[in-house]
């Protein structure tokens, strides 16, 4: 069982490494981290705390890990590769487990690299502007941001499995998290239970705390489990 998962994960890792779109997404995310934190660090509005600057960039960087998650599954369906995949690994649960593990590896690497690049860029930019660095915020927020980036992309994996295509999954996931969620947040306090807002507590403090970072993480995990469970059920029941 474990060995089957391990082999499936190794296969999926090899497949992902061979996708130009995945490499472009990883480099794009790291590049975006550099540009956005650089822009924030030179902007005049109170930027002298590198950690805080990097955390402000996280809402943009999540597009990167969401895209990674969608690509990990969605590309199987663009030219019928899924048929080959399922012929080689007939157990559907193993395929999804392998894909999820491969995604987790890539997303963790991307998130860590992007956040580290962001921190470095901010420090260099602040140093060249001769701004004295006040203090680094608590570093656990950076760890929280990395965890958030990896988990939110799992929603992309789940939605791509449900929609069986790249573009619809991208549209749904990105617009729910980046467009719908802020629109609702302006108006109803219940928006704090949406995945982006609840998970955001992992790296941004809430001015009026109702959820703690831990409960926020649990809410986000709940969203991942519900959509992921739906995706697993659909993937097992449907024809490929």
């Amino acid at each position, binding site marked *: 069982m474990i060995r089957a998962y391990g082999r499936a994960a190794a296969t999926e890792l090899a497949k992902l490494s061979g996708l130009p*779109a995945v490499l*472009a997404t990883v480099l794009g995310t790291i590049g975006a981290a550099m540009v*956005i934190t650089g*822009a*924030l660090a*030179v*902007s*005049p*509005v109170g930027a002298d705390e590198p950690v805080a600057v990097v955390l402000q960039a996280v*809402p*943009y960087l999540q*597009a990167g890990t969401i*895209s990674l998650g969608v*690509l990990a599954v969605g590309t199987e369906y*663009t*030219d*019928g590769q899924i048929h080959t995949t399922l012929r080689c690994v007939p157990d559907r649960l193993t395929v999804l487990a392998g894909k999820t593990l491969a995604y987790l590896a890539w997303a963790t690497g991307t998130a860590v690299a992007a956040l580290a690049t962001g921190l470095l860029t901010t420090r260099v930019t602040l140093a060249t502007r001769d701004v004295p660095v006040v203090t680094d915020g608590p570093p656990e927020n950076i760890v929280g941001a990395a965890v958030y980036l990896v988990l939110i992309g799992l929603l992309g994996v789940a939605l791509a499995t449900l929609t069986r295509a*790249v*573009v*619809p999954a*991208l*549209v749904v996931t*990105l*617009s729910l998290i*980046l*467009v*719908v969620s*802020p*629109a*609702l947040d*302006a*108006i*109803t*306090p219940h928006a704090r239970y949406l995945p982006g807002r609840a998970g955001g507590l992992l790296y941004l403090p809430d001015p009026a705390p109702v959820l703690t970072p831990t409960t926020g993480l649990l809410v986000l995990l709940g969203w991942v489990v519900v959509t992921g469970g739906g995706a697993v059920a659909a993937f097992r029941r449907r024809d490929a």
Partner: protein
Amino acid sequence: MTFPNTVAAEIRKTATLPATMVALTVAVLGPVAITLINAVGVRAALRSGRPELTAYTSPVEAVFSAVPIGTVGAVVLGVVAVSGEYTANRANIGGGRQITTTLTATPSRLGVLAGKAIAVGLLVAVAALVAIPASLALAGGIIGGDAPPTPDGVLSRSVGAGIYWMLTALTALAVTVFTRNGIAPIIVLVVNSSLVSVSVLLSHLTPLARFLPDLAGMSMFAGDLLAFDEALAPLTGGVVMATWTAGLLALAGAVFRWRDA
């Protein structure tokens, strides 16, 4: 093929893509649904006598804060109109691409692109004509008598939102001509269609950011919702965004003519 025939063909092709149905649904039902939730929240805050709970209390703002979700629909429409041509069929049915058929039927490349632009523009206009009046009526009906007096310029802001959607769709179309694949334009444009776009970020850096297409265009409808101080006047913003769109379309035309399909 005459130009009206080309336009008719492009309208039929674009309108019958499955993704177009989804995009139109998002562009129409998305703003209406968000408006509904917004308006119910505003009404609850007004009735409980605590209007400070919500970011705004006017039914009009409840509608215009829902415009970005319609922008997503417009982006999808503009992207799939082009990327659908380049998507290869499955290998077991020949692996062909529709663009070869399209250009065989209509060898004039600029004609094809103009036809696509007209088709996309028309479809987005239809979506806007349904979505925005419906959202305004819905918000007015829900908040009703509790609402503060209606601010001026609702009509011009509504028209502005529709124009913003059309120009965004045409920008998406032009960008997809460059990339010939829908994934990158979808990611960038959907991320940027939220009210907290990358351009808002750049506006902290330089006042020139207000001339970027999305920030300039948002001034047509966003009013106070725009988290940005030095926005252009609505009309100027519209002209700036239209200029960007025209420029990108011209560039797309040049690239489309010059490259192999």
